[in-house]
């Protein structure tokens, strides 16, 4: 006997197939985008940008790009799958299934987080490839591999959880775009992906600390490079707590039928 129900496993499997069967949509765009980022910022501009210490720019931005790719894909997967299912009403297949509301939510969240994790691996792989191919560069290494895994795990779950809320809330495809382009991306871009916090004035540094992405980017950067302005343990604990809260909200919304039942 397995701990999780066959019904839950079926739903997770279905949600994974949904993106695995479309590799050109799932894996190709982030591979290309991130290769471009690394060429332009890492290789071409990288030599002229000094982020302090003996860290080269390509090594500095890679953790941020991993976070950017992982969370936006986890978010987008969950929100799109749920919204599209509502739009075409096939989410009824899940709603009328004998699964508990918690099982439904966790299935969507886990499958979406897995997609985010695969993207994180993919982007890291692109970084490893670049730094190994270019002779003048030091290959990417992981200062704290366990933290890498822990952070990627927590942040993809967290954003998959947000994605569920987004998917339930959206009333139109435009809403999905709005959430991704106007909320997630700006937060990530101003979340210390491309610059160290210390380059900002004191005021903007304080403002940045209100941005949850900063903790994620700093945490993953610590895991890769052993440099951080914020304690990784605190970040991880706060993010894990946030994940639990967000998933609990998801379950509550499913139970209430928010966006699902009239």
């Amino acid at each position, binding site marked *: 006997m397995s701990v999780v*129900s*066959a*019904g839950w*496993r*079926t*739903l997770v*499997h*279905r949600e994974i*197939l*949904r993106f695995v*069967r479309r590799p050109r949509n799932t894996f190709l765009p982030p591979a290309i985008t991130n290769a471009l980022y690394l060429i332009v910022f890492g290789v071409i501009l990288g030599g002229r940008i000094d982020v302090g210490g003996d860290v080269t720019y390509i090594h500095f931005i890679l953790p941020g790009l991993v976070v950017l790719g992982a969370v936006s894909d986890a978010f987008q997967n969950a929100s799109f799958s749920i919204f599209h*299912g509502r739009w*075409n*009403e*096939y989410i*009824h*297949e*899940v*709603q*009328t*299934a*004998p*699964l*508990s509301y918690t099982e439904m939510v966790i299935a969507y969240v886990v499958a979406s987080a897995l997609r985010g994790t695969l993207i994180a691996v993919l982007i890291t792989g692109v970084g490893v490839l670049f730094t190994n191919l270019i002779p003048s560069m030091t290959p990417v290494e992981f200062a704290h591999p366990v933290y890498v895994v822990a952070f990627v795990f927590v942040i993809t779950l967290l954003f998959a959880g947000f994605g569920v809320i987004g998917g339930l809330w959206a009333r139109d495809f435009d809403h999905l775009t709005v959430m991704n382009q106007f909320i997630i991306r700006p937060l990530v871009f101003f979340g210390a992906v491309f610059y160290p916090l210390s380059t900002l004035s004191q005021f903007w540094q304080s403002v940045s600390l209100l941005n949850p992405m900063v903790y994620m980017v700093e945490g993953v950067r610590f895991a890769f490079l052993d440099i951080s302005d914020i304690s990784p343990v605190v970040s991880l604990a706060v993010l894990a707590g946030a994940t639990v809260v967000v998933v609990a909200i998801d379950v509550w919304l499913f139970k209430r*039928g928010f966006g699902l*039942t*009239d």
Partner: protein
Amino acid sequence: MSLAISTTDLEKSYGSVRALDGISLAVEQGEFFGLLGPNGAGKTTFINILVGLVRKSDGEASVFGHDVESEYRAARDRIGLAPQEFNVDRFFPIREVLTHKAGYHGITGEEAKARADRALRTVGIYDKRNTRFDWLSGGMKRRFMLARALVSDPDLLILDEPTAGVDVELRHDLWEIITELNDDGTTILLTTHYIEEAERLCDTVAIMDQGEKLTVASPESLMARGNDTIRLRLESPPTRPPKIDDERIQEMTIEGESLVVTAPTGGEVAPALVRSLDRQGHTVVDMDISRTSLEEVFVSLTGTDEAETAPETEPAAPEGML
């Protein structure tokens, strides 16, 4: 033994619209139950409350003794639903949609595939198993909706207008399939606009209108409530109906060469009627008795004659449709 479906004072409001206004229904296990009512009567709303697609505003609803809210998993596990609107996952080939559906009900692996194939064969679209839903014809889509409802081997099969807009052959196929299932013990809840269908299939029908239950009875006893029509062709028809002393006769009119008589039980009235006419010197050359249709009972109960409005939505409305 618990009821297959039991609702008490079930209510549903959408803003100011009262879709269900206190519906109490009991469907026995093994029953073939028909839910009839004009458009907007609340049939789909009733069904959707049972499966969890609509939240009730008030009242109680349970399926095989399981409350649809507090024991939603147990209730949903027993139900197979073929909804009125297509709500199929179009990303996967239809066979896979079925194995997923089986999986939610705890049936996995080879068993799920076997179930999926069996359901597809039952409805006659096995050769389309690797096709996506979008590429099926309209009739095949309807067949697939039934297959999806069947794949979990439900104890309660709910069919919301399964034969809307399908051709005669398919309608008969579907009737055969669901009759067999019912014979094997599956409880069936069917909504339809084809009265003929309800008359032919259902043990019991409930007629509802504007969220209220008007009556629940067997089709036979409903039809017994109305009058039969006896049509007698006379050799030399009089201009006015003859006087016949029989209190069972409700009405007599002359239509062309025929005398048209309405009475509750045509078969019993007719012989005496023919004798009386004979005594008065009228020779009956032909006689035809038509029973009240359920349709007439339906129209008199709901006050709606949908025959005028139906063609707008269903251009190919066959006769017998409300």
